[in-house]
């Protein structure tokens, strides 16, 4: 088993390993293996497409948290021409699970705010597994209010399992920090566009996710609780996570159908990590197009449309 591949990707991993092996052999010997390699590569592509054309919601959930999935800071240099990270909430600490600062693309300056996960064990701990504490949300709020002062549109990248459930986080008002962001974001007088790039975990995700447009990458998820959490509460067993994932409608395509998000960005077969640049280009185009439209609106229109959009969320009967 290759740990960099998920269960259902193992057939792909095996084919790729075989191709690598042949390449190594081929370079040493005069024998021409090119034909065989090409055959295998074709097979690998076909296999990938078959597997990825019929992913279950649970498999998509796993992809959203793939160990190689690009995180916010992986996309930043690909999407933006320039970025300056700013630190700290000015009250307590700098939370490494949320990064942010001014960024530029195509001569347009924006405020970028995103969750940040870590790749290796050390960085994972440093980033607290992408689970922000109140100071992370307060840093985000500080940057958003700064953006409003300088009339900079706000771009957020969402990728978190959720807000951190810890003693200190509760002491410092995790609930208030999240709630305040929701209220502040609803009324920011600049365009706010949000991208779910991996895991959109509950209130911890929404706390930087209220705005004028929500776009999801094809293999990202957005949900009120993690599939494992939902399964352990409602099915009394975390093993039922695959069933819970199916029941919750947490994939980009399902949420688009329910009109809870505005756009889905297609990912290459195999997921964003197979070709991050391809995805980055699409994110960049989406940012430019959405801001182009939103920034042309008078502030009152922007705010009232955002308000209407938020008020429209809900499904109920009227007797």
């Amino acid at each position, binding site marked *: 088993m290759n740990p960099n591949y998920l269960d259902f990707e193992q057939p792909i991993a095996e084919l790729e390993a075989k191709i690598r092996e042949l390449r190594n052999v081929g370079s040493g010997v005069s024998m021409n293996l090119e034909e065989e390699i090409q055959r295998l590569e074709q097979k690998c592509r076909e296999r990938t497409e078959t597997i990825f054309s019929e992913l279950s919601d649970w498999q998509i959930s796993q992809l959203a948290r793939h160990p190689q999935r690009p995180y916010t800071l992986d996309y930043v240099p690909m999407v933006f021409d320039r970025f300056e990270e700013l630190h700290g909430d000015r009250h307590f600490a700098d939370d490494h699970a949320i990064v942010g600062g001014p960024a530029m693309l195509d001569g347009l300056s924006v405020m970028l705010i995103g969750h940040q996960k870590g790749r290796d064990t050390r960085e994972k701990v440093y980033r607290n597994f992408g689970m922000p504490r109140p100071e992370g949300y307060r840093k985000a709020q500080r940057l958003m209010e700064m953006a409003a002062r300088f009339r900079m549109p706000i771009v957020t990248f969402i990728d978190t399992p959720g807000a951190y459930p810890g003693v200190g986080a509760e002491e410092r008002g995790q609930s208030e920090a999240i709630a305040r962001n929701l209220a502040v974001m609803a009324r920011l007088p600049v365009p706010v566009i949000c991208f779910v790039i991996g895991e959109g975990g509950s209130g911890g995700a929404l706390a930087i996710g209220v705005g004028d447009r929500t776009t999801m990458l094809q293999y990202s998820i957005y949900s009120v609780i993690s599939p494992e959490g939902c399964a352990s*509460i409602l099915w009394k067993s975390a093993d039922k996570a695959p069933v819970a994932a199916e029941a*919750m409608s947490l994939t980009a395509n399902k949420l688009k159908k329910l009109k809870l998000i505005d756009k889905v960005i297609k990912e290459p077969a195999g997921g964003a990590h197979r070709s991050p640049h391809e995805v980055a280009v699409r994110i960049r185009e989406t940012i430019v197009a959405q801001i182009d439209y939103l920034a042309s609106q008078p502030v009152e229109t922007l705010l009232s449309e955002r308000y209407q959009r938020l008020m429209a969320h809900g499904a109920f009967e009227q007797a």
Partner: protein
Amino acid sequence: MSWFQKLMPSRIRTEGASKSRKVPDGLWTKCKSCDAVLYRPELERNLNVCPKCDHHMTLTGRARLEAFLDEGDHVEIGAELAPVDVLKFKDTKKYRDRLVASQKATGEKDALVALRGKLLEMELNACAFDFRFMGGSMGSVVGERFALAAQDCIERGLPLVCFAASGGARMQEGLFSLMQMAKTSAALARMAEEGLPYIVVLTHPTTGGVSASLGMLGDINLAEPNALIGFAGPRVIEQTVREKLPEGFQRSEFLLEKGAIDQIVDRRELRQRVHGLLTMLMAPRRSQEAREGELVDEDS
């Protein structure tokens, strides 16, 4: 069957006869905190607060508002709204069945009741969660009723009071329920822009998505004594940090100490206290309205 019943001719024997010997159900109840045996009608007169130890027991949403508002006519907001199962959600039970069961048990269509009424003659909107209804969870109907109540406040220039009691967002409604956090918070942000006060009374328990939205956005956050209030539930935190949580963690007194709430108020004093606070917050607005009224009078 007793020997006496056996003697009776079968036509006068009734099935219910054996039941009638029992004390009517629920006439007496026990305080969970001090074990005192309490006479229910008296307990209800005391707003479900134990007269022996002041333990605050649960109140239903409607009983809460009836006790809080002045007697008289109330206008219910969003009464016509009923929940739907958009996702066709099914865990060990169907969401639809859970809804029907909760509706039967509570007589409510969903977990939030919103009323326009008066508090010591002051007109306001008040809403209250019903914890019996699927743990007071917030789905689309709860969010819409709350938003309608806030919207109505903006139109009429009224303050809003909310009694929170909820486990959080309603999982069975998926992302729709998460979005109610954004919706209710946005409605409150609009109220704040209009300069209309919002007071939230946090009652036992208020956690998750409700605490992380409308629960913590009061101009004034009040709490009943010893209520559990927090973002993550204590069990989740214990599993994460793998240590025993300190005594009193996430209780009202703890939140007051940490600066998250303004006051802890005994349920029996809430009417007076909230009225007093709102009177002070609304006074400048009301006197301005009065001045404008006078100007109009002079003009006419």
